[in-house]
């Protein structure tokens, strides 16, 4: 019984460890809404993403005109077409996927998605080109703030995405499009 043995070993050994909780939390950003927005944009661009600022009513037209064969997963008819049981072959043919972001993190450009935003968990990774829509007022300062807002108990899966897939495993040269999306476009509304 590995479990009993491991726990017994831990209990025997742990006596000398000191338990101390955290010191005062930092955070509580002094940045204004527009400063947060600018920092968010700067970090996303730094991570290789493209950022487009739009008014809400322009979004649909923009999406339809900018890309052909685009699948907007905020539309019920599109979601219905790609249920959780959908085949990988079909998912693998997705060129442009639009998903709605829940939360943006200014300090690193990360955008939070969870099960309720994803008809199928693999979509943000298997699509060749990923497009997020995000409302500007959903940008917060730091990851610490982000984990105050989300609740992991609400979702079976959740992910922060901060750019297109990338690697530097060959001589440290940065290459976009390792396994996940080759491109990321964020439409800020």
């Amino acid at each position, binding site marked *: 019984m*590995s*479990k009993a*043995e*491991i*726990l017994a*070993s*831990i*209990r*025997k*050994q*742990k*006596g*000398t*460890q*000191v*338990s101390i*909780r955290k*010191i005062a939390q*930092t*955070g509580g950003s002094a940045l204004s809404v527009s400063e947060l927005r600018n920092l968010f944009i700067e970090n996303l661009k730094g991570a290789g993403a493209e950022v487009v600022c739009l008014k809400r009513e322009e979004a649909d037209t923009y999406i339809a005109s900018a890309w052909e064969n685009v699948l907007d997963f905020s539309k019920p008819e599109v979601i219905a077409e790609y249920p*959780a*049981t959908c085949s990988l*072959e079909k998912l*693998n043919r997705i060129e442009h996927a639009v998903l709605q972001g829940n939360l943006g*993190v200014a*300090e*690193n*450009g*990360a955008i939070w998605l969870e099960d309720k935003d994803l008809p199928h*968990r*693999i979509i*943000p*990774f*298997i699509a060749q080109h990923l497009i997020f829509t995000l409302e500007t007022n959903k940008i917060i300062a*730091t*990851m*610490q703030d*982000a*984990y*105050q807002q989300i609740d*992991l108990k609400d979702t*079976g*899966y*959740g*992910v*922060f*995405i*901060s750019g297109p*897939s990338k*690697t530097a*495993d*060959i*001589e*440290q*040269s940065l*290459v976009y*499009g*390792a*396994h*996940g999306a080759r491109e990321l476009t964020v439409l800020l509304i």
Partner: protein
Amino acid sequence: MTTHARRARQFLANKSRADWHDRTLWFVRQKRDRIAATVPEWENLREQASRIKKEALANLDVYLEQLETEAIRNGVRVLWAKDAGAFNRIVLDIIRQHGAKNIVKSKSMLTEECGLNRFLHSKGIEVVDTDLGERIIQFRQEMPSHIVLPAIHLKKEEIGETFHEKLGTEKGASDPSYLTQAARRHLREKFLAADMALTGVNFAVAETGTVVVCTNEGNADMGVHAAPVQVHCMGIEKIIPKQEDLGIFTRLLARNATGQAVTTYTSHYRKPKPGGAMYIVIVDNGRSKYLGHPKYNDSLKCIRCGGCLNTCPVYRRSGGHSYGYVIPGPIGSILAPQKDVQKYRDLPFASSLCGSCSNVCPVKIAIHEQLYFWRQDLTRQKRTSFIKRFSMKATGFFLSENTRYNFIGIMARWAIRYVPRGLLYLPFNVWGRGRELPAPPAQSFKQWYRRRVKS
């Protein structure tokens, strides 16, 4: 000469490559410094991270059981492995139970530590590593030379050669973008055919039963979401108590590892996909033994960012393979002897004790102090060479008493001047192999000072 020193000499034989390795890792270190400086509360974050880890370790049994309870409630199966053998067998059982044939794995130092790929290979099961760097070294049947940048010891021409052979890329092609695209096509096929995905774990949150995996390539997610069965493998020390603790660690990890603000993907797995199966395998493999060790338990706080490797003057100039342990560099040099003190007895000496590792550590492990403690223990246990122990004893004898000190000073100044070079640099003068004795001064400092005070 120690094993590390001998392997380091081989690495240094190719001077231009060694220089490239040194410069490239130093560049990563500089990127880390620049991005850390953009976070005003950086030092506070390090302190908090250290304290959270200490708390997690102090109540490790409680948090592990909490993780298990939460995970089971989420429909996840939790398995415990006390050592590498048990771990490998558990994974094999899961594979057989599900009849899995096509297995993909994202980066996990734990599976390297346990020799999982080799074990499964011996059972006729092949695992495809999907991190680009890991896939490259898997093709070449090598060990990773860095915990975050596994193929940092290779040049693009060598990778091009490997890909030509294995993936049929054009002969002589070495453009990183071209090679990466070839790997993308090759691995996407593997993902689509995968019936089981293995991953490592960066953090396991006891409060919610979530395991967190950080990648830039998206390979962990491609595998996990494509395959019906997902298996997450974690060492017992990966646990953190609360969701909010992730806020601290995700701010530190990528910044300290590669100088990025965050990894491209920070994935939180809590429940299996509809119709899928999810496992968490919790592995001890010698960790709990050091939990109560007053000197060495701090090493269990490590989050495997690789920051101490990038900054280490010895690692940068000797390469990851010179260490001979799955985790190289300063952190590896204090973890390896915990696994096998006799086999890795030379590693705590592969350091200048400059302390740079401790200064960059995001969870404030005093790595250089632990290296020093290991040296003391290894010497006491007579695991160091006779020459080293003898010369240290002799040095102690002469330095600890005034008359002896004066005498040896006179002798040394005389010897450097008059003893033939061949005798001074005899083979047992290990120190003199890479160093030159200084020109002897005419008088000692004491003599000089006395004369000065008199006049």
